[in-house]
């Protein structure tokens, strides 16, 4: 919720920074859920989340740096 407030209320690039931390938190939460429910197959979702967070951050940084005033 606090990071969502940063995304909504602050500048766009601040929202990207908050979104990056959200991705990291999502990955950690997925790891903990997979371990907590004893479903090792779900651990792959955390790997995918980490990779998507990486790619998304790079894409946002590229386009925001180029097109924002």
């Amino acid at each position: 919720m606090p990071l969502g407030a940063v995304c909504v209320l602050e500048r766009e690039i601040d929202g990207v920074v908050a979104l990056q931390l959200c991705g990291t938190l999502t990955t950690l939460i997925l790891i903990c859920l997979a371990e907590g429910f004893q479903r090792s197959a779900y651990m792959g979702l955390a790997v995918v989340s980490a990779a998507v967070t990486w790619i998304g951050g790079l894409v946002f940084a590229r386009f925001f740096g180029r097109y924002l005033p």
Partner: protein
Amino acid sequence: MTNVVVDVLLGLAVAAELVCCLGVVVMRTTADRLHYAGAGTTLGPLFVLVALLLREGFAAPGLQAVAAVGLLFVSGPLVVHALARAIRRIDVGTLEPLPEDEAP
């Protein structure tokens, strides 16, 4: 004994991530926020990984967690660097050093 260590490590991970979230919310400049977002990809995931390896060992879930946290470790600084370049380009307009940036 192992359960206590795992609990402590998970508590440390939650505390580290809470500090990072608080930093992103409270700090005023984008660069300061980026520092905290970058820190969130290092300490918290490391604590979670060590806790999980203590509990599971190097079985399949542990190795997949190593892959996920390893990706976070490698990708975190790369994305922080790219975002810092974007912030500099937005705020200053160029990546080149300005005359006032030069050391006297």
